[in-house]
């Protein structure tokens, strides 16, 4: 194989799977890691050091809820000291002003706060907890401490109609950036796909609203809109290529080329407790599995778009076709596109005959 492997730019560190919220759209795996399986502080510090040595410049501290790790300040400090840009990806619960001021002092660069809906009634129903009002307070705390704020909303059938109100809310919260990202169907989200799948009418209604807001807010609040890929003609350029820019470390130390990659059961997953991070990045079978283009099948192999989207998402290909090397079935050129169309038709039919199913809420917090 003739691929130059560049050093990674970013690391998503999933410090824990524990979380006070129960979002049915959560991309965390259905099998959540237990507390006793989490890496220790010393192990996370080693991971951060190894990542920086390897070339990582952006460290996203996420989860689960990263604020549940009492060693968060230490981890922020080390990553920042080493020259990384440290981003906290959080539900915001438990982020007091003194706690955030301390993290900022230790070098935290940015906060990404998730919001589930535009008002407390809707948002709390989706989160499965009384959380919305506290998130609004958290945003004020971020402003008070003076850190840049991105608000992240995962869009789906149960909140898609609120796009306009969500944009207003983000503006009121003082966000510098708003990510409106349609649900990616992994983990809990896959389990809840029927209830989460937006309707074509919802997507069509949101489009002009978002477009107008992008224009209106240009220069004040940047809006990133991620469309629902099941409805698209071409897949997303997943991770900008497998093992190309980013790596994910799961709570137990598993190292994955993308946060969802644990669904690919044919992948030989490595762990930082057993192999050095640098070796995993450059030499492991899992990271090399879909690097470059040699692994591609028809139609990707000769497609004029392969440098744009890298054949789409490997996890989605595996989940929907059973073959991780297949063309992402979302692609209109994929021989398996009928699978996706079949899912869309099937979900719509289920909803038409039996109504929208109840959410299967993300399981109670794992504490074992």
């Amino acid at each position, binding site marked *: 194989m003739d691929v130059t492997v560049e*050093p990674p*730019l*970013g690391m998503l560190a999933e410090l824990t799977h524990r979380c006070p919220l129960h979002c049915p759209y959560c991309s965390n795996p259905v099998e959540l890691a237990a507390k006793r399986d989490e890496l220790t502080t010393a192990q996370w510090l080693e991971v951060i050091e190894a990542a*920086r*040595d*390897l*070339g990582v*410049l*952006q460290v996203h501290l996420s989860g689960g809820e990263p604020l549940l790790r009492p060693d968060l300040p230490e981890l922020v400090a080390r990553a920042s000291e080493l*020259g*990384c*840009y440290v*981003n906290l990806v959080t539900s915001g619960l438990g982020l007091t002003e003194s706690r955030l001021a301390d993290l900022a002092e230790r070098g935290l*660069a*940015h906060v*990404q706060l998730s919001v589930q809906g535009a008002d407390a009634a809707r948002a709390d129903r989706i989160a499965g907890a009384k959380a919305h009002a506290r998130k609004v307070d958290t945003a004020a705390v971020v402003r008070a401490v*003076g*850190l*840049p704020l*991105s608000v992240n909303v995962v869009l789906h059938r149960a909140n898609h109609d609120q796009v306009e109100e969500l944009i207003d809310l983000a503006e009121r919260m003082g966000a*510098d*950036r708003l990510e409106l990202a349609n649900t990616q169907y992994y983990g809990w989200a896959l389990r809840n796909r029927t209830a989460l799948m937006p309707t074509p009418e919802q997507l069509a209604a949101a489009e002009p609203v978002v477009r107008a807001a992008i224009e209106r807010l240009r220069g004040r609040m*940047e809006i990133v809109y991620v469309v629902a890929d099941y409805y698209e003609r071409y897949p997303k350029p997943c991770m900008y290529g497998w093992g190309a820019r980013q790596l994910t470390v799961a709570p137990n130390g598993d190292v994955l080329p993308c946060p969802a990659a644990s669904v690919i059961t044919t992948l030989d997953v490595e762990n930082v407790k057993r192999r050095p991070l640098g070796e995993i990045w450059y030499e492991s079978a899992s990271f090399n599995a879909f690097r470059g283009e040699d692994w591609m099948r028809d139609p990707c192999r000769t497609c004029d778009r392969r440098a744009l989207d890298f054949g789409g998402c490997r996890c989605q290909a595996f989940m929907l076709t059973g073959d991780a090397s297949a063309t992402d079935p979302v692609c209109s050129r994929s021989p398996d596109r009928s699978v996706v169309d079949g899912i869309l038709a099937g979900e719509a039919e289920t909803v038409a005959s039996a109504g929208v199913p109840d959410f299967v809420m993300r399981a109670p917090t794992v504490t074992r």
Partner: protein
Amino acid sequence: MVKPRLRTGVRLTFDRVRDTHVLLFPEGVLVPNATAAAVLELCDGSNEVGEIADRLGARFRGVRVEDVAGVLARFEDRRVVEWT
């Protein structure tokens, strides 16, 4: 509105792994060339474009105000630089 500075949340550092300056911000990483890095290092909200050009002129030959303004305009578009 004449003194450029890095936006909040944007950091310019030197990466010894890649042996180059890097610009870090929420959306990603940019690798500025040597000239751009020199311009950005002077973007602390206290220098006007003309002063930046003068100070760079003392280090590099043939630095023109238009070039500095051009670099800054590109970084403004990419939400790296703002004006105070």
